[in-house]
């Protein structure tokens, strides 16, 4: 029995080098949400450079973080994910610095979306697109003017709000409406936020991105608290909705690429990032995804529809008052508890 086991193990081990030899390949492995870069863009990149793109889909940031931290990111070259998770990846040493001498398009990036908390020295991250959370409402059906988060609690809005479904954002705007930061960690203040949040439930008609969107289009919901990408789609599907930049300050996020520390295709990865920063490609991606463009040089390629869309084309003074949801570490469990209590009412 032992002999057989030893034999099997030997066979397995001798087969290992055969599986591992793939270093010179012209390929780049990207981990992100399915479809987050247009398939045509990926194909055009392969055609131009001969580098094959292998897109590995992920469902959520949490799963991605778990997988990458447990496996060290082996097998992946680039990860495209959101701001706070970029910070976690950097702090855990799972990503490596970029070699900017390999880029020709790096100067195209808009400084507004750089030097963020997850990469203060601009060493690790190439921003892809940016998006925020916005309030939209139908002025025909809502008897008053909505100017900020505080108005969502108005009794006139009973059972009429369609909202995104994310603990940090919902509790974040509750904190904002009370004058605090979206990234509050003080249990005392979070307890107050819970008190404030609970009665909002009776105003909510639909939870979730697509659900809320459907409710808004069908007229079931007259107010939406949704991602900018959905608000920009709404401009064509239901133009009666008006976009509000909440006066307490908008919450926004940046999704960007990082290079894993374990990457075996560093050159191909840099070539891909350079391609993404190409002005025309960047303009296409931002419009295709319905997000805010982060590439200064791409601005001349953006269509009129982009510039006239208040959901993606955010004025600079609004951006100044914005805040990004960051990792709150241990306090995350308080957020989760509050949100669970809120949803289970």
């Amino acid at each position, binding site marked *: 029995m032992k002999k057989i086991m030893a034999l099997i193990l030997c066979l397995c081990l001798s087969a290992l080098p055969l599986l591992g030899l793939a270093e010179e390949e012209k390929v780049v492995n990207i981990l992100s949400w*399915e*479809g*987050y870069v247009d398939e045509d863009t990926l194909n055009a990149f392969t055609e131009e450079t001969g580098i094959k793109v292998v897109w590995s889909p992920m469902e959520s940031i949490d799963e991605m973080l778990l997988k990458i931290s447990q496996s060290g990111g*082996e*097998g992946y070259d680039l990860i495209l994910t959101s701001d706070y998770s970029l910070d976690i990846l950097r702090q855990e040493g799972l990503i490596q610095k970029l070699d900017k001498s390999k880029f020709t398009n790096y100067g195209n990036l808009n400084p507004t979306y750089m030097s963020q908390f997850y990469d203060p020295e601009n060493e690790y991250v190439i921003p892809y697109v940016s998006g925020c959370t916005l309030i939209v409402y139908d002025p025909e059906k809502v008897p008053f003017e909505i100017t900020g988060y505080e108005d969502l609690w108005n009794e006139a809005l009973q059972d009429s709000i369609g909202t995104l479904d994310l603990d940090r954002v919902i509790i974040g705007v509750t904190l904002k409406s009370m004058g605090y930061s979206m990234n509050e960690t003080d249990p005392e203040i979070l307890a107050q936020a819970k008190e404030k949040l609970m009665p909002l439930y009776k105003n909510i008609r639909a939870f979730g991105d697509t659900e809320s*969107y459907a409710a808004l289009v069908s007229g079931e919901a007259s107010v939406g608290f949704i991602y900018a990408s959905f608000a920009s*789609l709404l401009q064509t599907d239901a133009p009666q909705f008006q976009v509000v930049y909440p006066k307490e300050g908008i919450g926004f996020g940046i999704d960007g690429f990082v290079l894993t520390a374990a990457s075996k295709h560093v050159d191909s990865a840099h070539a891909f990032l350079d391609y993404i920063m190409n002005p025309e490609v960047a303009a296409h991606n931002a419009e295709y995804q319905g997000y805010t463009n982060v590439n200064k040089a791409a601005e001349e390629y953006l269509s009129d529809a982009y510039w006239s869309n208040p959901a993606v084309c955010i004025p600079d003074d609004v951006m100044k008052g914005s805040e990004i949801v960051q990792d709150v570490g241990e306090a995350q469990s308080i957020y989760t508890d509050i949100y669970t209590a809120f949803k289970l009412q």
Partner: protein
Amino acid sequence: MKKHSFGSLAFMSLVLLVLYLPIIVVVVYSFNDNTARIPLAFTGWSTRWYDSLFEGRGGYLDALWLSVKVALWSVLISGVIGTLGAIGMTQRALDGKRRSGWFDAVMESMVTLPIMIPEIILGLAFMVIFNALGIRGNEARLVMAHVTFCVPYVFLSVKSRLVGMDQSLFDAARDLGASSARVLRDITLPLCRPAIISGSFLALAMSMDDFVISFFVYGAGEGTLPIKIYSSVKVGVSPVVNALCSLMIAAAFIFAALSRYLGAVKKARSSRNQMGLTSE
């Protein structure tokens, strides 16, 4: 046959309608002409999503092919392991009444453990082990992980069939001089066949359906169909998925209808044969 009352018919139709409405919506929307990012309204009939599916857009066919391959391998391997395991365990229980049963009890709960452990833990554990051992082949990793949670379905199904069986059948075969291999081939396996098949189908469904374990086990690459579909939440699920699902549903219906039909034909034939025998 008893005639159904109006009430029971209405009730049944209602239940069937509620059950099948989502499937009908999926199929109808696979023919939707609407090309908006989130196609809520039905704007007209079109086969454009089927066209893009077969053009290979989005790589859904590759993902389906991977899912099918992994599922078939997993079912084959877990079918053998599960069936032999169930037969062996039952045999042990019958042979060794004198022995204490704790070993068998432990073994049995070990076998069913993979379906009790939360998937995410199993998935992480597999990922860590595969990485440590340097097992890199994506398909091999998927099959190994899937076999683990497929075995219990086959095992439990075959085991419950064997327990209810008359032991004297096997004794009689041995009594008439059959070797134990012959008993297995001619008596045990044919009798277990329905259980093996039903267990395998359950396992097949579980394997095709699995997302969490597959996600963690899978290395770089496009992934199985469930991984691909779940990962579309951020940008919206493409109607191509509707087209693909409609085809899968159609295949399942055709398969079920065919097996019912063949079963009915076989039954009719055997009952005819029996009548022939009695009239002789």
